[in-house]
């Protein structure tokens, strides 16, 4: 089964994947095409609106907010740390705002799940402060429209577009 996400069709499988215990990284670039990276503290996939909201601690916002104000281009990776199943979602920013209480509730659930995962399942068990010591507040929510999705699971299919099906009509 698929859901309509913006101008593409995104499988429910991917939405479910994004809401699981994943490691997220953000990529943006400057006007001079200099890339920058940050560690995202969870996402919310809004299938009805075709958008992904990511939660970025303000301490990590430089230089991303300036980059996004310049060009709005987002690259987001999501990796299952256990299986290495990975996707990259690319798109264009539609909104940047301070995280709301609802955003923070989602982020905190994500952070708790991630800590639980690393405590129990990582190859080398990691203590809670591995995640817990990240400074997460205050936080900014960056919402972008997904325009491209790529398989990034290591292997021969890495880099191939996923569910890139134009919406008819």
């Amino acid at each position, binding site marked *: 089964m698929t859901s309509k996400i913006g101008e593409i069709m995104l499988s429910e499988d991917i939405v479910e994947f994004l809401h699981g215990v994943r490691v997220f*990284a953000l*990529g943006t670039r400057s006007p001079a095409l200099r*890339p*920058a*990276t940050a560690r995202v503290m969870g996402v919310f996939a809004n299938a009805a609106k075709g958008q992904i909201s990511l939660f970025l601690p303000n301490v990590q916002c430089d230089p991303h907010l300036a980059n996004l104000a310049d060009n709005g281009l987002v690259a987001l990776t999501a990796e299952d740390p256990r299986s290495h199943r990975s996707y990259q979602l690319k798109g264009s920013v539609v909104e940047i705002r301070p995280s709301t209480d609802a955003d923070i509730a989602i982020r905190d659930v994500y952070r708790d799940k991630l800590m639980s995962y690393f405590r129990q399942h990582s*190859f080398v068990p*990691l203590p809670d402060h591995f995640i817990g010591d990240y400074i997460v507040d205050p936080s900014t929510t960056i919402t972008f429209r997904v325009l491209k999705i790529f398989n*990034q699971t*290591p292997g021969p299919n890495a880099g191939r577009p996923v569910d890139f099906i134009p919406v008819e009509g």
Partner: protein
Amino acid sequence: MPHADPVTLPAEVMPALQGAIPATIVTCALDGEPNATTVSQVHYVDRNHVALSFQFFSKTIRNVRENPYAAVQVINPVDFSVWLFDLRYDHSETEGPLFDDMDMKLEAIASMTGMSDVFKLRGADVYEVLAVRKAPWRRT
């Protein structure tokens, strides 16, 4: 062209270059599209160069050959500090001591992560370190 004032990698960053925790790399195509992905190894070469494992013919590989800049984050597995690198692609090595070292290390990483049938080193991509800093992202 060599950097005017070469950066020297601090000793504190060395544990982060052992490959215990995968790193993240962001690059940018000449058309302006950023690309983010995971990289298995960020390998110490000398005081102002690191090498990244080139395993697949990926968008990252294509990007740095047309726009050589890359942003990388690595995590120190000892104290979990995050380190940010600004890099510039220099060249790729497909044989020799650096390649052999990284190939051996990649085999170990692949074995530990169940990816032995997938990971294969195609090249050791050497980057000049333009800047390195400890990210102020964690309580210390």
